């Protein structure tokens, strides 16, 4: 029995051994078929994924033509002038208090790169002291003839190409505001027209343009051109790297509407508007501190005096005793500025700026010492603490003397740029 069992067991083992390769072969055949099928399926899935990725890439390429950028400047200002009063003049109600939280700038810029040859920009600003406004809207056409498209034609509403301060974004400026001269001469910095920007050499750039003239912040003509002719503006800049020098020129005319026909035949007063500008910046490296720079800019010319509006009565009639020659006067303005980085995160800046709207009279000059400390919290966020000390002459009738009103200003600003 034992031998039979052994024989049966032996036979079964032998049969198993004999059958095993055949079954393995079957399994191998079926396995290789299923592997091939699996491989085909995987290949199909990879190809399908490849097509999906190609479609997504195509969509992504289209979306990448849109570029959003912008920044927010949230600010607190404390002014020596502040009072807990509200001034009421006729129908106008003006809070005298200037200690306030507010949004100085809330800007969103959309750029669409249609192709290497054309681009469109729309730039909105929604500061708290005004409604959302269209700051810039222009189209750029680049020339197809030169390598790297060295010439660009811009048409629409954009920066007036004059001076260093105008072209420099408020998001990178070291002090909260531009100089007084720039604020008066190029209030809003933008106008409507066109310009041709040419990069003749890597370091030499010129811009020549034609604009309406009044600029986007002009009280009389925010949306229309008051004059048939247009103003011409041009700028040339040499950018060496450790120093930059540039010159600008602006030539046009101002039209001030007048109700009194005895002052001008066409019931308006036209006068020359000429501006010259020169600016330079020098950069240096302080070994233990970091980079620093010295900057200066000079403005000069003939222009509508900002006080001229005060010389006009509401009906646009010259006020009694006011000199019509002072509606447009020779002016000068300049500033000198120093910026020093202290390591990677800290920066200090100081600027002294002067604006004389009428070089022929005394006591109308504006001077200001502005200082600021910037702390760069991260790559996008900056905290600024600034202190401005303006000096202006006010006439005190009671004592018949000139004095400088108390109007120093503290500004604390948090900026986030994206």
């Amino acid at each position, binding site marked *: 029995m034992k031998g039979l069992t052994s024989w049966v067991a032996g036979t079964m083992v032998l049969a198993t051994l004999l059958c095993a390769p055949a079954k393995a072969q079957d399994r191998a055949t079926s396995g290789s078929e299923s592997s091939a099928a699996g491989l085909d399926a995987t290949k199909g899935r990879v190809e399908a994924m490849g097509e999906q990725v190609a479609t997504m890439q195509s969509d992504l390429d289209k979306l990448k033509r849109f570029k959003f950028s912008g920044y927010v400047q949230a600010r607190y200002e404390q002014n020596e002038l502040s009072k807990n009063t509200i001034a009421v003049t006729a129908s106008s109600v003006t809070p005298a208090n200037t200690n306030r939280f507010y949004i100085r700038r809330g800007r969103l810029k959309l750029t669409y790169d249609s192709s290497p040859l054309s681009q469109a920009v729309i730039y909105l600003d929604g500061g708290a002291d005004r409604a959302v406004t269209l700051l810039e809207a222009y189209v750029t056409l680049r020339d197809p003839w030169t390598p790297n498209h060295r010439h660009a034609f811009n048409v629409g509403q954009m920066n007036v190409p004059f001076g260093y301060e105008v072209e420099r974004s408020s998001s990178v400026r070291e002090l909260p505001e531009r100089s007084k001269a720039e604020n008066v001469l190029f209030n809003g910095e933008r106008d409507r027209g066109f310009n041709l920007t040419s990069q003749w050499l890597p370091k030499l750039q010129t811009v020549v343009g034609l604009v309406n003239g009044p600029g986007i912040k002009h009280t009389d003509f925010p949306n229309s051109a008051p004059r048939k002719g247009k103003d011409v503006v041009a700028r040339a800049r040499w950018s060496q790297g450790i120093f930059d020098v540039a010159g600008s020129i602006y030539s046009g005319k101002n039209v001030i509407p007048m109700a009194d026909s005895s002052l001008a035949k066409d019931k308006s007063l036209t006068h020359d508007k000429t501006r010259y500008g020169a600016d330079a910046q020098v950069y240096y490296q302080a070994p233990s501190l970091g980079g620093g720079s010295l900057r200066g800019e000079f403005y000069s010319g003939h222009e509508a005096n900002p006080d001229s509006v005060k010389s006009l009565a509401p009906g646009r009639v010259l006020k009694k005793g006011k000199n019509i020659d002072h509606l447009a006067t020779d002016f000068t303005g300049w500033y000198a500025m120093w910026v020093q980085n202290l390591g990677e995160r800290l920066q200090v800046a100081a600027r002294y700026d002067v604006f004389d709207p009428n070089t022929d009279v005394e006591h109308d000059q504006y001077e200001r010492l502005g200082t600021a400390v910037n702390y760069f919290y991260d*790559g996008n966020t900056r905290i600024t603490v600034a202190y401005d000390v303006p000096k202006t002459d006010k006439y005190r009738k009671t004592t018949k003397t000139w004095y400088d009103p108390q109007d120093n200003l503290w500004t604390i600003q948090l900026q986030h740029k994206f």
Partner: protein
Amino acid sequence: MNMKRILAAAALAGFIAGPAALAGRSLTIKGSDTMVILAQRWAEKYMGSHADVVLQVTGGGSGVGIAALINGTTDIATASRKMTQDEKLKLRDRYQTMGVEIPTAKDGLSVYLNEKCPVRELTFDQLKLIYTGKITNWKEVGGSDARITLYSRENSSGTYAFFKEVVLGGADYAPNCQTLPGTAAVVNAVAQDEDGIGYGGAAYAKGIRDCAVKRDAQSPAVLPNAATVKDGSYPLSRSLFFYLRKSPVGDMKKFVDWVLSPEGQALATEVGYFPL
């Protein structure tokens, strides 16, 4: 009132001190995709012998690295092209410096062809005509009658910018040129496409064939290798850069010095690039 001011000042100081306190002895290296493998190998090897320093390496493209250098989110930008004038001015706007450029290795920019492509060499002019869409069929440059498929990098890539500047002379790429997110993707696309042509770092050239490049019709056709890149006979050789905001000091200086040392340069050769 005084208590309010003290609390406000304390809160402000806390916010200000926070990021500085977290900075520690960590250095970030960001930028060129061409250099990302090389930078990773440098970082790994350096950290192996300097346990107290942490080096974080990421890619994204030379343009991305330089943008990060400008906004302060990286300590070192790696770039396979030189910084543009516009980028230098942006850096100057923030840091009052034009940056510090340090060449760290050399690379031969390979022109990739499929293994089955019969074309063996191309001149600069032919490459320019191909990539600007003026030549669209391989038979126009000695190949078979087949439409050429163009593969390129994205415009944030230093390789893209270098090729555009040196080979295309600043002209625009043809609109039908397919942009891919990395050199490996370009190599892969050309390896699978018999009619494809691409370009990228020599270290990535696996599974495809390098095309010999001629400066003009009379020049000899040269393939990229250590000898031709080093002696300058290969016309598409370029430097690979570190860009810093200011002259390096402390840990950064030690790392940069090590990269430029024989040990660091040997590692560059090992990865597939060429020493200075």
